[in-house]
């Protein structure tokens, strides 16, 4: 049924920290790897080693640069809590900021991709808010991909159905995995810990707290899809001139053991 649940018990989603994401694509690659195998695989590829390789991915990492010459205004109250200025860039002439942006399904509360589905193949789970596609019902009309502003859904040319991020529903409830492994593969793979998984309906969950502390942003809120996932904007950067590290180090001779003191004397000659 493509009617959305009035309310979901949990709101499972991801908190993605754009401050520390280094754009290594590990989340995208491990996503591809896990979903090629797990219950929802495979994510097909066509012409993998040919001239025009193409394939389905649930997660794509874009790299952007933020213009350093624009003085940034404080966040508008509608977009953030509080009125803190976030000076993302310094004065003109300094290096801009590179911003790596992993893009995947945001498991929206008002998911238009679900309501436009003519077959009932797309659905949002009432228990945890995960948006899924029943690959046995999907007719591959692609309308859901048109309805998604985030480009979260990709069509599988080989199987003729639409595919999307499952929030690793086949991992997070999989009791044959160790407790600490019952998380989305992208979260476990991230080398900088830029991705956190949790329940945004619970105000005391780590993701809720972290999102509150650092003005976690819902993407394109004006469209009204109420995405569950949040993105943490980059932290404030130094604004003054860089102070170079001191060229000479101070070595306290008195604290060195006698052998090293002798060595230091010999080498310093």
């Amino acid at each position, binding site marked *: 049924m493509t009617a959305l649940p009035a309310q979901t018990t949990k709101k499972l989603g991801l908190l993605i920290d754009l401050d520390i994401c280094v754009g290594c694509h590990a989340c995208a690659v491990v996503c591809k790897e896990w979903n090629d195998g797990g219950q929802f695989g495979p994510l097909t590829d066509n012409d993998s080693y040919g001239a025009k*390789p193409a394939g389905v991915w649930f997660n794509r990492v874009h*790299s952007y640069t933020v213009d350093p010459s*624009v003085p940034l205004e404080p966040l508008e109250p509608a977009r953030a809590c509080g009125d803190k200025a976030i000076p993302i860039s310094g004065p003109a002439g300094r290096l801009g900021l590179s911003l790596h942006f992993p893009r995947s399904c945001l498991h929206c509360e008002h998911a238009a991709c679900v309501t*436009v589905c003519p*077959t009932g193949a797309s659905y949002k789970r009432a228990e945890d808010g995960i948006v899924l596609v029943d690959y046995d019902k999907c*007719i*591959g009309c692609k309308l859901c991909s048109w309805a998604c502003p985030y480009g979260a859904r990709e069509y599988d040319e080989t199987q003729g159905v639409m595919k999307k991020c499952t929030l690793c529903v086949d991992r997070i409830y999989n009791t044959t995995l160790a407790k600490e492994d019952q998380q989305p593969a992208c979260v476990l793979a991230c080398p900088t810990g830029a991705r956190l998984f949790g329940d945004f309906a619970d105000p005391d969950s780590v993701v809720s707290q972290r999102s509150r502390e650092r003005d976690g942003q819902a993407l394109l809120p004006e469209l*009204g899809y109420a995405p569950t996932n949040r993105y943490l904007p980059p932290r404030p950067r130094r604004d003054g001139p860089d102070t170079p590290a001191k060229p000479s180090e101070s070595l306290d001779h008195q604290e060195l053991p006698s052998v090293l003191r002798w060595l230091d004397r010999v080498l310093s000659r």
Partner: protein
Amino acid sequence: MNPALSVIAFTTLSGAGYGLMIWLGILLPFHRQPPLPPQFGWVALVLAMALVTVGLLASLAHLGHPERAWRALSQWRTSWLSREGVAAVWCFVPALGVLAVLLGYAPVGWLVWLGPLMSLSALITVLCTAMIYASLKTVPQWRDWRVLPQYALFALASGAVLLLPILNWAAPELALKMPTTTAQAALLIAFAMRYWQRRQWRDVETAPSLAAAVGLPGAARARVFEGAHTEASFITKEMVFRFARKHADTMFFTALLLGAAAAGGLLEMASNQGSGLRFGFAFAALCAYAGIFLERWLFFAEARHVVSVYFERR
């Protein structure tokens, strides 16, 4: 948006078929003088149903699993695509009823309610098609109140233009002044409305800024440094379709020339010839269809999906 041939063929062909049904549903029961020849009604209706069927089959062609298409009738509570499917299937019921009357299998008196019912069902189906596009918040150009009347007007116009060669074939002695004026007016209003909409959208920035789309504060400026993938993906192929505005203007001008000017002129010439079999009506229908096809191609090609903002190097 990627202008897929199957969707353009579907919306234009079935639009013409439904337009024809709308006119027939009114014309057949209520037209009195001069009397219409008996073969006109069923030939026109069979043509309308054939166009609708070909259009629907074309729309099935772009599905990944056409054999599961029946499932698309199930979600009419939320999905305009599903509603359109239900309306399209329902529309065959009054249309077959009218056909039964015309072929003598049902009482003639039934036309009075079967005809308008067929017109209404056909109109609702066209409006459902338009709502599929008009309901998408992700494509601002389509979320425009003019999209709905435009789809209805283009259906009515193509139906009216198609009606003329059939009428001329069935009753060559008639000059067909009145239906000609109707068809010309419908074409003119439809293209004028499209022109107006296009003018309004051409200089409007429809997308949010990239910085806003990744959650940065309002004034921030960001641009693409490295793409998420080296080759095209489904998203870039389907949604990030861009082509030069210069060509778009040329195409739209061609559509106007064919659909409004050439078709209107040919209709005028044919109706002025007075009587006899006039091929001008058939050529006018072909020109109008070509113009509407081009217009529909642009309707998709010029529409800019919000997701493009994550990809475009500006």
